[in-house]
């Protein structure tokens, strides 16, 4: 009789959900003891060796080096009957270097080079994350002098994810990061090369930098210094750059932008409009007693104009459900307002904005901006948006090509309102002019529909009374 126990990936930190397999230390047929290290994983936080909780014979390996694995996923199966005895203390003492004599994990995936020059460790250093990381760093240093081993590309998990999202094979990417690691920029450069049709083939062995990479001088590999040994990371040793880990809002922004930019084919249409009537309306509202407690801005009127235009073109308020192969038309508008906060860009939305009066909209926008600037935007406020406005006009900019908030199909960009010469009834007169830019997902919105939406928005802003007619 056999008893098969599955060893699963546990949360190796606090609240982590996934990890990447960076080294496998056992193969089918191997005998493992309790607490013997079976693999090395890297998470967003650290590199960690994982000890088996049972002893026995490995009967299946479910993962390969390079796999990104969810917490709870099966790593290996162990037959615990007639298997290995419990480890004897002396083996345990030197766990870091003895046990994991790197086993050929699978034929395609040779294990990492063995580090013979590890210092003699003290009792039980094996189960510490440091042991893993130390070996790993050593590998990186070695590759400064040699070539990056093609079978073991070094890159941080977010970079791996980016490469996977973009369909770029990491092995094909020219690595310029510290210790021969592939950086985000390297992946983007590879993407550029792929788009422009330049070869992105792997560098031939012995040639670290292929000829067609002008951005990388030939001696870059040698001059690259790892900053890992410095007590305080950040500024690099030559003090010419500062390296900041990508995380938090920056990380989420980047992921959202990459996923949006590379899944939804964007089209942007522009229109320059006369905002004079809208600005007059804003001035009148500001002056009125009824509105004295409300911060009324042109943005509130633009929001109202967009809502009116959506009412006339409801097909734009939709999203693309790739998995279900369906287009989801929304009967409500959760209007996102992109906000620059001290922590970065966030897009909270006003729930059911289509039900709000202009005054309620103005109040909601100023509330939302205040909350966002204070860094107190609740997570729920950024979810389930249906359409977004981004006001780059506040930076004095005329126009731009906004990227869709993921899951949405339209984003309206509002430029700065400036006095410009304008022709009215054959006369050149100064008017308050602004550009609108509307990006849409061309999978579900055709050019005609997108243009109609922008034209309707423009109409309401140029002639606010149209809001009365259509609203």
């Amino acid at each position, binding site marked *: 009789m056999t008893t098969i126990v599955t060893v*699963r990936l*546990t*949360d*190796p*930190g*606090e609240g982590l959900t996934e990890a990447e397999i960076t080294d496998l230390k056992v193969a089918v047929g191997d005998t493992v003891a*309790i*607490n013997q290290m079976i693999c090395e994983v890297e998470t967003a*936080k*650290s*590199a*960690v*060796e*994982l*000890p088996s*909780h049972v002893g026995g014979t490995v009967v299946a390996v479910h993962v390969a080096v390079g796999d990104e694995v969810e917490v709870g996923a099966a790593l290996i199966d162990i037959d615990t009957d007639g298997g290995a005895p*419990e*480890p*004897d*203390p*002396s083996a*345990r*003492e030197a766990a870091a270097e003895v046990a994991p004599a790197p086993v050929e994990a699978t034929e395609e995936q040779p294990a990492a080079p063995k580090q013979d020059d590890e*210092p003699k*460790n*003290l*009792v*039980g*250093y*094996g*189960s*510490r*994350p*440091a042991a893993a*990381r*130390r070996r790993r*760093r050593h590998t990186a240093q070695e590759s400064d002098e040699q070539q990056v081993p093609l079978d073991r590309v070094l890159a941080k998990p977010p970079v791996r994810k980016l490469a996977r999202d973009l369909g770029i094979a990491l092995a094909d990417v020219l690595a310029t990061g510290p210790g021969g690691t592939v950086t985000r920029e390297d992946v983007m450069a590879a993407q550029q090369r792929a788009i422009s049709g330049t070869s992105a083939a792997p560098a031939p062995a012995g040639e670290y930098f292929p000829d067609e990479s002008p951005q990388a001088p030939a001696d870059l590999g040698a001059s690259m210094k790892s900053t*890992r*040994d410095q*007590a*305080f*990371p950040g500024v690099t040793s030559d003090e010419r750059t500062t390296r900041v880990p990508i995380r938090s809002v920056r990380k989420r922004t980047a992921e959202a932008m990459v996923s949006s930019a590379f899944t939804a084919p964007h089209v942007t249409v522009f229109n320059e409009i006369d905002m004079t009537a809208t600005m007059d309306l804003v001035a009148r509202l500001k002056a009125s007693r009824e509105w004295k407690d409300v911060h009324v801005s042109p943005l509130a009127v633009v929001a109202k104009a967009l809502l009116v235009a959506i009412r006339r073109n409801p097909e734009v308020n939709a999203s693309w459900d790739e998995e279900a192969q369906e287009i989801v038309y929304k009967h409500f508008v959760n209007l996102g307002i992109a906000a620059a906060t001290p922590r970065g860009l966030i897009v909270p939305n006003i729930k059911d904005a289509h039900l709000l009066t202009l005054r309620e909209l103005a109040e909601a926008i100023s509330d939302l901006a205040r909350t966002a600037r204070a860094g107190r935007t609740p997570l729920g406020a950024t979810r389930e948006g249906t359409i977004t406005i981004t006001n780059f006009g506040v930076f004095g900019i005329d126009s731009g090509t906004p990227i869709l908030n993921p899951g949405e199909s339209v984003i309206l960009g509002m430029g700065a309102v400036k006095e410009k010469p304008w022709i009215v009834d054959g006369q050149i007169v100064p008017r308050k002019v602004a550009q609108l830019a509307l990006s849409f997902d061309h999978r579900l919105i055709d050019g005609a529909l997108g243009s109609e939406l922008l034209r309707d928005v423009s109409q309401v802003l140029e002639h606010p009374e149209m809001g009365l007619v259509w609203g």
Partner: protein
Amino acid sequence: MSVFRTTIPAPPQDEPMVQLLAPDGTRTPHDELDPVLAHLTGEDLRGFYRDMVMIRAADLEATALQRQGQLGLWASALGQEGAQIGIGHASRPQDYFVPTYREHGVAWARGIEPMTLLEMFRGISHCGWDPHELRTHPYMIVLGAQTPHAVGYAMGIQRDGAVGTGDVETDTAVLALFGDGTSSEGEVSESFTFAASFQAPVVFYTQNNQWAISVPTSVQSRVPLAQRSRGWGIPSVRVDGNDVLACLAVGRIALDAARAGEGPRFIEALTYRMAAHTTSDDPTRYRPRAEEEEWAAKDPIARLRLHLAQSDEIDEAFTTACDEEGHELAMRLHHHIHAMPDPDPRELFEHVYAEPHPLVAEERAAYDDYLAQFEDEAQDQEGVR
């Protein structure tokens, strides 16, 4: 010379450090400390060695258990066994200890089962031992809280008249345990003030393991930590924290002084956190490898083993037996934790009040309703198991 004076006499490393056992095991005689240790037998010394081996085995097993998903977190005390076993054995049973969350060796010496520590890190108990019976406060996660509690307790002992009576069974001292990072907390300074003003029977014991997560002690203090308390008029010493005998000796002298009514003492035990801050930390991101190697050569266990071997107090059979016993302890912890059922979540509501309480009853009832939603699911899962 400026009218401004500083207590910084020299670089921090120039603060003299009391050491009895050199890293190579050589025993240095010491006029003041030797008499304190004179009664120790070979049996006692072998006991200290066994203690350190056992607690290290438990510590390593706990780290493995965290990696196996059995503990939420583990704060390793690897490398600090000498400082902890030394001070643990310096006390008398009536002394009261106020620990942080990284005092596994101290807990061992106070008679606390390692399993109870693991249960806390598994998140199923707040404190598995009786703090009054074992005279050891629950592990305190909040750093800085140790010293005001300890000083307050010591002032209470003064009011009970259990200081300076000359009766060894009666006189009591309090030991406040904290680390170098905690020494930067305001509470520690306030505690120094109160302890000095009231001449409370408290010993402050800092294990300076040199890293407050990723911040080195050199960033936190311009002077050696041992010098800090002198500004309050609290006598202090820096001791080699990887030297179990020196820690034991200075601990005894300090606790004796406190019990005798001579006021507080401060001990800086200079040691090294060999492992990560916790299982969530990766020290290779901020700590030079050369430093780790330097301290690996000063290991407290290896040091005592060398010393005992030189004086023929131990042989290989003994060290092997210790290793095996440590391994048995580790496997006991391993199997016990892996077999441990999840507690009933309703236990959360126990121990809030000694008597029934209407608000707790109401919240418990609401929670019962909430849990009832999952009963079907739970039964399904039972079936799968």
